[in-house]
């Protein structure tokens, strides 16, 4: 993969944001998505678990959550596609002193609703939600979740007690759903004042009570903004769909080689189409049968089919983590994923065929896209 000094995006195409254990890479392609120009690593040696691009209100702001192994983490931003990054003097996402908590790392950066163009959210470890109302300049914790009565009983998964999924309701400014490993799904209907667990039907294989009120190790939840009440969930064992904003969940692991996995992403235009990468068991956590297969449902989970054209089908002991699978918003949709072994794959035909965009990267922990117009 070419590593140009600077990748200057043109006025159209796709920007790929790739966070790794040792820095971030920005890649750009035109709408054909066959050839990619790359720039990086940014933040050499620091892990980047969360990235986002915010193009609301005339901005072209890229966010990167960087964490030094030694000196802690900050949220940086760039308004020129990574040529220059902010370097906050103070740790800009921080817990109140009296909380007794300290930031481990930022796991998710999510722009808010289109109707609130200066609002963004951060999900962090230890599990908490932060909100910015000034386009990411300053951040405050959402107190209703920070002081949640069930917090003392939340237990970390192997990756830590992380809030990794943030889904604001585009139609209701008071409603939002978040997911925590391993506390499960929570939803607010009053703008963040109160949060209730929404895990009915989601199993916790690792607890004596397999269907507790909370404590599930949810790995990822996605939905389509045009049908916001329908949610898809990849669990630590289990694939689920909800048709009622998480009030109840139905098993949809129909025809997958394993219902364990981390990554899940939504088709940009079709509320019935979802992509996952199943992994073999929580003990092994690699692709089943050493075949790298993306599974796609086009009927909301009634069935799943493997997408393998261009992906290695032998000797591929790969792992795709929870934020390392994503789609773009072009037509036909592009789908991309990165592996813990440092490979980056892309499809420009909705997953029908794949090509390797990069190899030899540090372990990939997040892949995000932005469509440039």
């Amino acid at each position, binding site marked *: 993969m070419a590593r140009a000094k600077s990748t200057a995006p043109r006025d159209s195409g796709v920007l790929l944001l790739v966070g790794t254990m040792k820095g971030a890479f920005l890649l750009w392609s035109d709408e054909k998505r066959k050839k990619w120009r790359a720039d990086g690593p940014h933040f050499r040696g620091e892990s980047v678990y969360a990235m986002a691009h915010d193009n609301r209100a005339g901005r072209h702001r890229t966010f990167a959550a960087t964490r030094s192994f030694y000196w802690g983490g900050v949220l940086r931003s760039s308004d020129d596609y990574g040529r220059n990054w902010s370097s906050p003097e103070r740790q800009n996402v921080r817990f109140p002193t009296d909380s007794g908590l*300290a930031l481990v790392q930022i796991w998710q950066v999510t722009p808010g609703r289109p109707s609130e163009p200066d609002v963004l959210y951060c999900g962090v470890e230890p599990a908490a939600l932060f909100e910015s109302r000034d386009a990411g300049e300053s951040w405050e914790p959402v107190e209703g979740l920070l002081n949640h009565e069930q917090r003392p009983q939340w237990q970390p998964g192997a990756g830590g007690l992380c809030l990794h999924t943030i889904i604001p309701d585009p139609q209701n400014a008071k409603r939002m759903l978040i997911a925590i490993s391993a506390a499960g799904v929570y939803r607010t209907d009053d703008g963040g004042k109160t949060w209730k667990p929404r895990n009915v039907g989601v199993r916790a294989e690792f607890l004596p009570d397999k269907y507790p009120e909370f404590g599930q190790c949810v790995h990822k939840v996605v939905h389509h903004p045009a049908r916001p009440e329908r949610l898809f969930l990849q669990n630590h064992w289990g694939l689920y769909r909800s048709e009622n904003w998480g009030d109840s969940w139905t098993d949809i692991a129909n025809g997958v080689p394993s219902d364990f996995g981390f990554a899940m992403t939504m088709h940009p235009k079709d509320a019935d189409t979802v992509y996952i990468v199943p992994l073999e068991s929580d003990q092994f956590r690699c692709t089943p049968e050493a075949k790298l297969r993306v599974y796609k449902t086009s009927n909301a989970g009634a069935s799943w089919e493997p997408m393998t054209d261009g992906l290695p089908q032998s000797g591929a002991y790969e792992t795709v983590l929870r934020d390392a699978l994503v789609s773009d918003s072009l037509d036909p949709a592009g789908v991309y994923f990165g592996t813990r072994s440092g490979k980056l794959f892309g499809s420009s035909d909705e997953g029908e065929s794949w090509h390797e965009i990069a190899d030899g990267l540090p372990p990939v922990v997040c892949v995000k896209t932005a469509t440039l117009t």
Partner: protein
Amino acid sequence: MITIELPTALGAFVNGKSHVVVDEPCPTVRDALAALGKRAPGALDRVMDERGEVRQHVNVFVNDQNIRFADGLRTPVPDRSTITVLAAISGG
């Protein structure tokens, strides 16, 4: 008077210098780091977390003594001491 020596990685928070001189009395390491925070809050954020604890992979020495093996942030700081902040050898 004490001197707080900082690694190159934190130079950006002290105008590129390698050390900070503190004139006021600092009986303990906690006092000395608080004095650093008044002069360079960004540097202190990198050394200590929100709870006021030294980050896990940062070592602080009073002269040649690692405070982890002394009395932590309560470790006494004699006048004319040098406090040295270093990244630990851990890493991934």
